[in-house]
């Protein structure tokens, strides 16, 4: 008897979902995969997270398209699982459901003034300049000369660069039009980047840090005293430091040694071993207070930043971007680990409260491992999850779904989502954006509202 074709739903069409679909099609070419996405467009943070001036990375969309949609995986866009379709309905219709929903909110600093107007999660700024339709109406006040970015990771580096690029440079990217207009009028001349730990512990990749030091018309300032490593950091770097940490320290020393004030119009000031203690202002952000830290070794051997004293330094600024990490939110009707903000899982098999695999439910990407790693990390992550799924298919651990009529999910979707965006709709959006881009000599001009996206998609359907 011919074995039944496995029907699998993947929830979230970001990099983790795309790598999972590709991996599953490699392992089980007979799999019928439906890729659910709450936006009308696929590829998640590749489109909505990766900085617009990193166009070469966005090229990964071609590989995703080739390995998923062009191999028969269906795109079901503008459908929110948990709202339009329930987990229970997915479980009834598919042999397996893979959650690839990522981490949709940000960590907070937990300091007073965090919610003042002008204090933003960097992820909101990222979503806004990348044309995420849920963020296009945000209004960033870019009228102050100084902005402060809290955090030392690659998102902090991205937002710093986006605040410093010239209009001419931005025009060569696919930055959203509303952001291009606002950034063109920006008065921000200086970005102060504040890191709680030292230069040796900064989470930037050396590639991102190097870029900050090579922007046209932008000076970079690093205090020579900040790159004099303390004994704890020096020992750590020599014995446990990664290649990246060593390169970062080298780069920062090079930046610190540059002659002051080349006369460039804009400046990036990297400050280390400083923690924000309060964001202040009457009615909006006017200043941020920071305190000095030192690096100490914890009982478990790890390094952490600890306040040196209570002395506070005030930096006047009109804009604060908080970039201290992403955080996942619970999904309806699926177990959630409130301590680690992930779906409790073992190698991608989602677990019930008593630690047993929840039959047919899997996780991949940030909702599985937390918000760490880079794009390619999701490839190995997806292979692990898909490996478990394929094994479960082989051992018969996954019963055929009770609702075995292939047309039933389509009937549900037709009834509830008349504005469903399928592959034809996405191809129409993509083609339209690329054509607009070609006319304006830009890589792409994004449609940044749901109405425009759905109109472009709908034009294909009618």
């Amino acid at each position, binding site marked *: 008897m011919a074995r039944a074709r496995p029907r699998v739903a993947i929830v979230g069409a970001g990099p983790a979902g795309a790598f999972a679909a590709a991996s599953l099609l490699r392992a089980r070419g007979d799999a019928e995969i439906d890729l659910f996405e709450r936006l009308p467009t696929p590829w998640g943070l590749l489109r909505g997270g990766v900085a617009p001036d*990193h166009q*070469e*990375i966005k*090229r*990964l969309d*071609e*590989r995703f398209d080739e390995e998923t949609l062009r191999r028969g995986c269906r795109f079901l866009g503008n459908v929110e699982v948990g709202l339009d379709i329930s987990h229970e309905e997915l479980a009834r219709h598919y042999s397996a459901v893979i959650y690839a929903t990522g981490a949709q909110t940000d960590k907070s600093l937990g300091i007073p003034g965090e919610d003042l107007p002008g204090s933003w999660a960097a992820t909101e700024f990222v979503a806004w300049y990348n044309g995420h339709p849920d963020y296009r109406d945000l209004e960033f006040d870019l009228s102050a000369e100084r902005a402060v970015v809290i955090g030392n990771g690659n998102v902090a580096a991205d937002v710093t660069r986006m605040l410093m690029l010239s209009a001419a440079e931005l025009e060569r990217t696919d930055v959203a039009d509303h952001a291009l207009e606002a950034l063109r009028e920006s008065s921000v001349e200086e970005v102060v980047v504040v890191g709680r730990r030292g230069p040796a512990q900064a989470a930037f*990749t*050396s*590639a*991102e840090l*190097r870029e900050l030091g*090579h922007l046209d018309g932008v000076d970079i300032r690093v205090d020579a005293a900040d790159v004099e490593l303390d004994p704890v950091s020096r020992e750590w770097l020599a014995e446990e430091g*990664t*290649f*990246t940490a060593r*390169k970062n320290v080298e780069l920062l020393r090079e930046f610190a040694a540059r002659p002051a004030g080349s006369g460039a119009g804009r400046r990036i000031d990297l400050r280390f071993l400083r923690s924000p203690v309060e964001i202040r202002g009457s009615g909006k952000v006017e200043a941020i207070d920071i305190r000095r830290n030192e690096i100490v070794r914890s009982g478990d051997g790890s390094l952490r930043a600890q306040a040196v004293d209570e002395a506070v330094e005030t930096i006047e600024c009109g804009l604060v971007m908080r970039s201290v990490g992403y955080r996942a939110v619970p999904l309806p009707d699926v177990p959630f680990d409130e301590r680690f903000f992930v779906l409790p899982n073992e190698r991608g098999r989602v677990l019930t409260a008593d630690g047993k695999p929840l039959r047919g439910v899997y996780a991949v990407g940030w909702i599985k491992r937390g918000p760490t*790693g*880079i*794009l*390619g*990390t999701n*490839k*190995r992550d997806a292979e692990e999850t898909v490996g478990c799924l394929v094994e479960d298919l082989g051992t018969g651990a996954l019963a055929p779904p009770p609702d075995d009529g292939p047309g039933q999910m389509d009937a549900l979707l037709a009834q509830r989502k008349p504005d469903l965006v399928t592959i034809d709709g996405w191809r129409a959006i993509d083609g339209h954006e690329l054509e607009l881009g070609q006319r304006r000599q830009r890589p792409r001009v994004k449609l940044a509202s749901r109405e425009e996206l759905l109109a472009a998609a709908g034009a294909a359907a009618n």
Partner: protein
Amino acid sequence: MTYVIAGSCIKDDSCIEVCPVDCIHPKPGDPDFEAVEQLYIDPELCIDCDACVEACPIDAVFAEFEIPEKYGYALELNAEFFAGRSTIERTAA
């Protein structure tokens, strides 16, 4: 001659899968794999076959003489990653 990987690398490991001489490191499963920010080509082992260029989904691999100016640092950086490793360490991995 050698090929080099630029800092735009996303650690998609397609290049490692196609490299005929195993000169791209670290490999998935190596102890330092998760910690590195990119993959590197060992200039002493690379045979200039071009397979990794074809495999890379984001065009992060360049022939030594075709490195764009903004990635000018990459030649030295790839070599430096392997500096201090013995020939046996390099070829046994």
